[in-house]
């Protein structure tokens, strides 16, 4: 979804963005981000740390002069990973869920990559200069931490709003809000349950590995009988080792597709929640402003000024509303598409794994039948 308008557009192709490498130095992870320049065969590669991503997200939130900004559903940025030694796997799992699993931060990188692609594919957000700068400047975006976006300014208010129950702006949003609350909870649960499944698959793989190793210890060449028994034990060991690899594959498949997909879905639902609050707050602010102005203007009793103001407020309100509605449509079609791709990917991977191991086990079976019929 490249944008080719007159305005400042992104100079790289959204779908080409990849995180190609990650290195760890103590506590700090450095990501290598590659992308393809539009209308050119040139590629770009930059190095970023998590704080740079955070800067990007803040920049997106705090864009000025962007009409209807409050209506946008911002792609969710994964939490910061804390790779230090003292961080045990349980801590990492609590913090990052699925993204903590997988070797060498693969899942985490995939999630960050996805984030960048989503931002770059968003019709409004892709125009943000910060994004272009993030993707192509060899120097890191700098330590500009001063500017706080909407989110930060209102973060406390967001929490307050969520606790209270407010009359919603529109019936449309009311409906959306209910669905969202429900889906957010359910997808979180589904993600957690799948995580349990993947952890158990990994435990099973490990147990198989131990068992296969123990079988090796039974090897004994003392006499003919011992040799015969040893051969049988080694054969069983091979079979169990195959089962071990089978589980590792299955777990990895779950992780890289469905796990990632559900995690993303879950975080998107949360992002939508945030969006709703932001929307409500924006509308509330407009309300308050109207009341304030109204009180002031009432003294001056300049009716035309009042009316003009009223129109301006309504216009702003309608703009936010229409952006919000568009965002919701976009959001839904996007998430359906994303889930579809993950489900297909997951199914195909698992199908291939099942075929691979059906073949392997059949070979073992054939070999055993031939050997033992002698």
């Amino acid at each position: 979804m490249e944008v080719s308008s007159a305005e400042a557009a992104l100079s790289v192709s959204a779908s080409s963005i990849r995180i190609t490498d990650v290195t760890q130095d103590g506590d700090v992870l450095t990501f290598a981000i590659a992308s393809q320049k539009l209308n050119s065969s040139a590629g770009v590669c930059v190095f970023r740390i998590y704080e740079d991503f955070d800067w990007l997200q803040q920049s997106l939130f705090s864009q000025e002069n962007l009409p209807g900004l409050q209506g946008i559903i911002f792609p969710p940025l994964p939490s910061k990973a804390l790779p230090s030694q003292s961080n045990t796997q349980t801590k990492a799992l609590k913090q990052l869920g699925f993204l903590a699993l997988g070797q060498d931060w693969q899942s985490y990188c995939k999630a960050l990559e996805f984030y960048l692609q989503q931002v770059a594919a968003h019709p409004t957000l892709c125009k943000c200069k910060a994004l272009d700068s993030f993707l192509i400047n060899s120097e890191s975006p700098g330590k500009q931490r001063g500017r706080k976006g909407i989110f930060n300014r209102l973060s406390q208010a967001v929490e307050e709003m969520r606790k209270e129950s407010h009359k919603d702006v529109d019936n449309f949003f009311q409906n959306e809000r209910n669905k969202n609350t429900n889906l957010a909870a359910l997808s979180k649960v589904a993600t957690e349950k799948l995580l349990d499944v993947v952890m158990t698959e990994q435990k099973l793989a490990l147990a198989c590995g131990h068992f296969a190793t123990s079988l090796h210890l039974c090897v004994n060449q003392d006499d003919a009988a011992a040799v015969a028994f040893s051969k049988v034990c080694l054969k069983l060991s091979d079979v169990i080792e195959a089962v071990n690899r089978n589980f590792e594959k299955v777990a990895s498949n779950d992780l890289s597709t469905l796990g990632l997909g559900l995690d993303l879905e879950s975080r998107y639902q949360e992002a939508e929640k945030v969006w709703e609050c932001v929307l409500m707050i924006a509308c509330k602010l407009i309300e308050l402003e109207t009341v304030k102005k109204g009180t002031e203007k009432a003294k001056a009793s300049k009716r035309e000024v009042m009316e003009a103001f009223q129109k301006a407020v309504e216009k702003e309100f309608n703009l936010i509303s229409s952006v919000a509605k568009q965002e919701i449509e976009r959001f839904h079609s996007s998430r359906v598409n994303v889930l579809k791709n993950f489900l297909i990917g997951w199914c195909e991977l698992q199908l291939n794994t099942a075929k691979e191991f059906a073949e392997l086990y059949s070979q073992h079976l054939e070999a055993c039948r031939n050997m033992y019929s002698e």
Partner: protein
Amino acid sequence: VCACVRESVCERERESVCECVREGVLFLSQSPEAACLSAEDISPSSNGPRDDDPDDLFAEATEEVSLDSPERQPILSDGPSPAITPVTPVMISPRVDDEDEEENRDTFDIQISVSDPEKVGDGMNAYMVYKVTTKTSLSIFSRDEVCVKRRFSDFLGLYSKLASKYMHMGYIVPPAPEKSIVGMTKVKVGKEDLSSVEFVEKRRSALERYLLRTVKHPALLKDPDVLQFLESSELPRAVSTQALSGAGILRMVNKAADAVNKMTIKMNESDAWFEEKQQQFENLDVQLRKLHASVESLVCHRKELSVNTASFAKSAAMLGNSEDHTALSRALSQLAEVEEKIDQLHQDQSYADFYLISELLGDYVRLITAVKGVFDQRMKAWAKWQDAQVMLQRKREAEAKLQYANKPDKLQQATDEIREWEGKVQQGERDFEQISKNIRREVGRFEKDRVKDFRVVIIKYLESLVHTQQQLIKYWEAFLPEAKAIA
């Protein structure tokens, strides 16, 4: 004279039953003369034809050891229940040599199944009854197909009889399955939950394997107790089941062996084969226990996976129900169904893990205990032979002394005793050689069977793995179009 381990060990020679018997030590080989008798001489306290032969050298021994005789009652009722079935001093003369064995293998045609567990009675007196079906063309059986009903204690009774008859000759008698107070209590109390069902199935399978292993042994297959167990519609109840667990009996046997280990004269092994084999079995014991523990962990995790998969399936179903987008909702519901089916596969596979591999290893851990017991019996036989030699020496010395005293009748007695002990020494040597020979043969058979058993299990396990994967392929192939159909 107390007919337990050795004369000199028993401190209370005046009493007809010594400490050892009261504590329930399974008495095995009694008098040396016993070895000469053929299969038909059976003591009155066991099944089978009675033999009131006045020359029955067993009469004395039987009387002393039989736990049923009235003088014994007061002693036995005090202590811990020593109720072992009356010891049958039956010696089946080892007519089963290698040729016979080969012949048996070729014509080994017997199928046994244990099925249809049924609960009989109520409350704490309830018990399970199993149907034992034997199909065979062997001539020692009276019919082609027999069905009988047996309860768990009947199996234990059979094992105890076989152990008492054959272990001291060096035969490896397959042990009966373990008792389980917890398991049985649940069943008695009437809980129809999954764990009681699993327990009964586990026991049924173990009983079946036990019988199959028993009849695989050429000597045991012909044993009258085994035949009666498989064919008789009525079976006399086992005396008392408290001490009758397979492990219980083996423990008692090994207690006797421990007494042997405390012997003053250490056995000098002239035959390196026995020493090597014993060491091998020690090592194997350790390894098998490790393997068994390893597999149990596997079984446990597999069950956990099944639980987690079912849980995930539910959450996916709920997600599907709440989803507005029709095709996505449908796909999510299908996903939930696939996961439910996979859960079932996990359960089936976990049964395979357990019944094929885990139980095989468990059975062999128990079998190794029986094998070790048999080696200990050989040491006992050696000890008995040595003791007879010592005794003979003493008697000779006593006679020599009496030569110089003027007591003709005592001298006669001494001479008689010398002859008696010369006989015992010869018998001791013969017994020792016989048991050594038997053990060599038994170990050879055990090792062959071991390889066979493991091979069979590997093949069955691979078959289950292949089946699971093929099912998975079916499920994924069915799901793929659903995922692709999401618009």
